[in-house]
């Protein structure tokens, strides 16, 4: 299978007041063509930073310390700024969390779609218009000709997210990065956008990196799941493996935290404790202050657990699973 994205041993850090704090530690995973990989975890675990690393859009105080990011076989970390810019849009497109602010409010939808198509496909204005209409139809927008003339404020959130998806897809990227694209939408629209992405993936033959903290969304869309905790990958497996047989105590905690209406005992069981600050130093496993099993295992406080393959394709980093 062809890999559209391959991240290897990625380390990234933010410098705050001239001190570097590691936000991503040894992250590795890959995405094949026609596959959706979900990255899940709490706010601040490094999900969005991962996407920004791939897009090379880290804020000024952030940097990739080591590791490589291959998109379509090219290592982005070795490219110049100008070369990376050619990759953005063309090879990898990104859908943002907040559709309300991700469009320029002063320009029509049509202008913004066309400018992107002309830029990436070298189409004439007329061709670009036709392509724009085609893609708006693809994302399920009724009377696209009219929509092209409208400004972002005239569209609802769901419509704007569709426009953004159309904009990203119209450049025909091989990798689609979606950073919580449904978080700002209400549930019915969320469902529509998810099935839209599923259909489009098959259509475009692209790989999707989907960032979310919503396990319901994961179950719906993902082929494989990567669980991040405090900048580290703690578990990786197919969606089936992760949901049927979660191995890491953190993943189990996440599953339990989802309320299940079908059970008699309708109760949310949160993971105790709070997420560590990046400035905090924790020896051993980063999850140990919150882990229910750590107290009986001294190793958890001494060394960081290595990634092991518990079953084919299912990896976990936990001392207790050895």
């Amino acid at each position, binding site marked *: 299978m062809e890999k559209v994205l391959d991240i290897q041993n990625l380390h990234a850090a933010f410098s705050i007041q001239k001190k570097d704090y590691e936000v991503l530690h040894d992250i590795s995973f890959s995405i094949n063509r026609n596959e959706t990989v979900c990255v899940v975890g709490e706010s601040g675990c490094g999900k969005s930073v991962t996407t920004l690393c791939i*897009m090379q*859009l880290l804020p*000024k105080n952030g940097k990739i310390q080591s590791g490589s990011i291959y998109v379509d076989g090219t290592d982005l970390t070795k490219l110049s700024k100008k070369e990376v*810019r*050619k*990759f*953005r*849009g*063309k090879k990898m*497109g*990104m859908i*943002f969390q*907040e559709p309300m*602010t*991700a*469009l*320029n*409010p*002063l*320009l*029509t939808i049509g*202008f913004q779609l066309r*400018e*992107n198509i002309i*830029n*990436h496909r070298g189409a004439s204005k007329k061709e670009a218009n036709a392509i724009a209409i085609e893609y708006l139809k693809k994302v399920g927008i009724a009377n696209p000709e009219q929509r092209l003339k409208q400004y972002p404020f005239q569209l609802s959130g769901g419509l704007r997210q569709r426009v*953004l998806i159309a*904009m*990203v897809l119209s*450049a025909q990227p091989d990798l689609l990065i979606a950073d919580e694209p449904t978080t700002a939408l209400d549930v019915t629209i969320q469902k529509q956008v998810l099935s839209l992405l599923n259909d489009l993936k098959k259509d475009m033959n692209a790989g999707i990196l989907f960032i979310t903290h919503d396990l319901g969304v994961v179950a719906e869309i993902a082929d494989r799941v990567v669980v991040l905790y405090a900048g580290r990958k703690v578990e990786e497996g197919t969606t089936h493996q992760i949901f049927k047989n979660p191995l890491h105590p953190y993943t189990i905690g996440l599953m339990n935290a989802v309320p299940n209406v079908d059970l008699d005992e309708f109760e949310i069981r949160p993971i105790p404790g709070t997420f560590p600050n990046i400035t905090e130093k924790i020896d051993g496993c980063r999850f140990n202050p919150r882990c229910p099993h750590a107290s009986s295992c001294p190793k958890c406080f001494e060394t960081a657990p290595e990634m092991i393959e518990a079953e084919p394709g299912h990896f976990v980093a936990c001392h207790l699973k050895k």
Partner: protein
Amino acid sequence: MKRENQLLVAFRKLLKNKLATICFILIIIELILVIFAPLFTQYDPTAMDTTLRLRPGFWAMDSELYLPGHWLGTDELGRDVWSRILYGGRISLSVGFISTTLGIIFGTLFGMLAGYYKKLDNIIMRIMDILFTFPGILLALLIVAMLGVNVVNATIAISIWSIPSFARMIRGRVLQIKEEEYITAIRSLGASDFWILTRHVLRNALPTIIVIATMRMASSILSIATLSYLGLGVPQPTPEWGGMISTAKTVMYQASYLVVIPGIAVVLTVICFNILGDKLRDILDPSLRD
């Protein structure tokens, strides 16, 4: 085409405001009078006639000194005040317009570069700070003194004077726009910095530019009047409002209207542009909108 639409919307909103409408109409009337000055007066603004010195205007219609035709009277050299006001307005308005335009072009350029590129920020803004340390008119005086007294140099002086405040305001706006998510989104689609700056940042800064340009127009007109009053703007005998006030000083007690009339012209123009700018800001400035 699309941008015109939006400006039209803003313009229609502007006309809903009575005060702004009055100011707008006054400015239009003034522009017509000044541009087509020969149609509204038959006298040459520089033609002197010492036999007709200091003749009063329409307010002394019963006086035997009143000359029909010179409805605003004549000055100490027998020149028609009405034609001098009209032709003087040509200088005031065109200097105001040209120096504001030059100020906008360079101020926007510097402001955008400083706001967008962090590396250039310090260099550009420190240079602007140096220009800021001169009290406004002093900087213009300095430039005119160095380059020589004429209209072109006065225009250059006023333009340079307005660059730093433009640059500072545009920079602030660009800093704000730069952080918007749509800029990141556009960048993630592979847009170049140049494209982002010209297509997205500039366009979003446009309302701010329009507002400060209108306000600046008022102060530029005031500046050229000030410079001419000080004898450093437009040399005599070319009519100019500030210059008219300056030469009328000597006969102020016999003929106060020679000071008052050009004074009214300056004040009216400046107030109109200021009010227009103020109302435009209410409409266009996103930070004041809901």
